[in-house]
């Protein structure tokens, strides 16, 4: 939960949300569930943090929201990646890969 998230590198949540939305547009709860599933229960995001991140991403123009009906015919705001969001995701992925590799090298050197 929050503690776990505190362990996340700053800005990682944004990247994970972008990744989640890269597959298909999704509403807030869907994002939370998908994150939990994909991380096999390691990352649990609470509503407050999630919506703060969504607001931030939306303002940065990386995602955009649209009200639609859900499969249970309830209204929900679906978020989708924009073109800048897609670009951002790929650069962040690269950057992340580089960092992880670097950290791994440091940790394994002895």
């Amino acid at each position, binding site marked *: 939960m929050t503690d776990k998230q505190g362990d996340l590198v700053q800005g990682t949540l944004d990247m994970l949300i972008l990744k989640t939305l890269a597959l298909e547009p999704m509403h807030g709860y869907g994002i939370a569930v998908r994150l939990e599933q994909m991380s096999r229960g390691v990352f649990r995001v609470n509503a407050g*943090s999630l*919506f703060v991140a969504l607001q931030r991403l939306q303002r940065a123009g990386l995602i955009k929201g649209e009200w639609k009906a859900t499969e249970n015919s309830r209204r929900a705001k679906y978020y989708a990646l924009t073109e800048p969001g897609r670009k951002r995701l790929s650069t962040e992925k690269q950057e992340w890969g580089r960092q992880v590799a670097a950290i791994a090298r440091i940790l394994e050197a002895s």
Partner: protein
Amino acid sequence: MSILRSITSGLRSLFRKKQDDFELNEELSGFLEMATGEKLHQGMTRKEALRAVRLEHGSVEIAKEEVHSSAWESIAETCWQDLRFAVRMLCKSPGFTAVAVLTLALGIGANTAIFSLVNGVLLRPLPYRDSDRLTIVWEKGRDGSPENVGYATYLDWKAQSKSFEQLAIYSSWQPVLQVGEPEQLSGLRVTSNYFRTLGVHPEIGRDFLPEEDAPNTNKVVMLSHSLWQRKFNSDPNIAGKLVTMNATQYIVAGVLPASYQSLMTQDPRGGSVEIWRVLGYDVSQPWACRTCHHLVAIGRLRGGIAITQATAEMDVVSAALSKAYPKEYDDTGVVLTPIREQLLGAASTPLYILLGAVSFVLLVACANLANLLLARATNRQREIAVRTTLGATRSRIIRQLLAENCLLSLLGAAAGLIPACWTPKVLAVVGTGDLPRLDQVHLDGRVLLFTIGVALLTGIATSLAPTYRLSRTAVHDSLKEGSRGSGSVASRRLRGMLVVCEVALSLTLLIGAGLLLRSLSRLLLVSPGFDPANVLSLQTSVLGQRFNDNEVVRQYFAEAVKRLSALPGVRSAAAASQIPLAGNIDKYGFHVEGKIHANPEEDPSAERYCVTPGFLETMHIPLLRGRDISAADTAAAAQVLLIGETTARRMWPGENPIGKRVKVGDVDKPWWTVVGIVGDVRHIGLDSLPDMQMYIPHQQWPFPDGQMTFVILTAGIPAAISPAAQQAIHSIDPTQPISRITPLENYVGLSVQGRRFALILIGAFAAIALVLSVVGIYGVTSYSVAQRTREIGVRVALGAQRGVLFRLLLRQGMFPVVCGVIAGVLASLGVTRFLASMLFEVQPTDPLTFGGVVLLLVAVSVAACFIPARHAMRVDPIVALRHE
């Protein structure tokens, strides 16, 4: 790009708050419902599911708050909330608000007023293009002091130096303008490149032409905007017209813009320069010589040339000149004074001292307000504890306090601006001595910005103490009913410390004011060497072709003095080329027979008074030895003069100067014989020691002065004789202009006006600070007495002696005062030396002033503690115990 988007979407959401709020609400509740649905699906009961979701995600409200506060616009919103709340809080306690605003208005208003003075006089740009490249160029005197230059020297400088883009000279000129009533103007004679040097262009007409700057074609003048409006009805076709001055026709070249105010002479007795005439010198003229030091050179440095470079270059030029003309220079070298320094240098020290002093007043006001706020904070402890329990963070509470205090300060600043608007008027009444550029003093953008800045700083500063105090409040204690929080000891200590600061600051100000007061009173005791009582002075200068004959001038003044002396109510009258303390400087080389240096330029010079008989008697200047000059000392008789005491002492130590011979000005001229020694007069000011002086009979001076000042000793009020005196002069010649009609006492007053001005202001600041401190001391003592009513009641009930109790309270009240006095004395010892230049015959550490001020402050403080302590003694133990 993204910042821009964030700003626009933030702004949009500020205005679509409802809409956004609604959407977020729907999204969040949807989220939580879906989460609950999921849990139900897993087999939980509805109640369990709701609880689990709550635990995981919190309530909708908390999540909403989190989202809200993450966006920047929420800060703007809460600030607005804080401000509205602050207004409500201040309205709820109007008494507190009024006292606080008044205190701040005093502090901030005084600061605004003084800053507007500093801004107008020192900070505003000078009316010249690139004024930092302008510099006055002086010849260096033997003691390193700056000296005026002669015309021939100027020409050589101009030809040989490469550092200056332009080099011009000016000298003062007092023409009589014969348009309507003849009026004596203050003017300058300048070289034709003068305005080009300053970077000023005429608004109407043209600048002076180089070919006009020659002896016989120099009848061209430039008018100031004010003169053009006043005397020529703003005639747009003035350029090229003829005006008559000193019975001579001049052609008007042009009019300068209104924005240009001459700063070159700042004689408070003379008024500003309004007319300029081409100098029109030629090296062949006798007054254009190298030793004729009566011109001031002003240069515009070439771009990129530093003042040190220019000085070095000019030193070389000057060395070559003094080698070529060894008898015409007493030393080599030049002194360069940047124009800003020359014009404003003298004013800057007193002004910055005033700014420092007034900031002390603001600090005292801050301390006082902080004290008030502390008292209020104690009362508001419970309110704040409640808000903390309801979830307000400490930063939020501090922000709230800041909002309240900044609002208070801004209100205070607004109230303070009202008196600050009157600054120029007040200055005019008080009299500022010789501060330049007072016309520039008004409230402008920079002053307003300063005021707002000071107000916000004040708001923050006054919040420090209560914030510190609040941040240490234990919530639980404050919530308990009727608690006398243990914090009150800490609070009392904090308030005591504020009193220490207030007392120290006030003491420093009081000591400053005391030192200035002692200086002024000492100065007023200084005898100027003459008696100004009942003497009227009026200035005149001869006007008309007939006065080209020296004998006519002599006859005219002799006749005028005769007619003035004959007036009823006049005891005696005389005329002199200059009078002491009137701002003139007229010195001539003084060459004593047998003691003339190989280079006569190295001989000293003496102030020259060209006088008619009766001057000593009218001015009450004592004749110490020998005889006074008389009507018998005519142009035909042997040349005689009187000398001052200092002249006698310096030139003939241990000898009798009577009968000794001297040459005045030029060594080629005939001898003058000393016939009498008179007392010294203070010529420059009461605060400067008399220099060498000599008195020459007007009848005997080869070029009798045409501009003379009459002095008339009357039996009654001097001003009353003025109409009769003017009539007497006009009965000889009705066309003669008369100006500067003023009692001699005014000149004495003017010479101490600058000091009086500083004293009045610093005295006023000290008084404000003292009153604020006393209110502060009284407030602290009475508050602590009120807080301890129950304790006092218990003590009395247990048999404490009221006298002992009284002394205890008094001692506790006076403790911070004593600490403050010690701190203040130490601070003053360090600070008062900055005042040294404004003191006269008083040491910056004058023990009498220090002692007196400490005594005054302690006495007033004891009184301030005495009243609440007495009040506490009347406490009835029964009432006190039932208190609350």
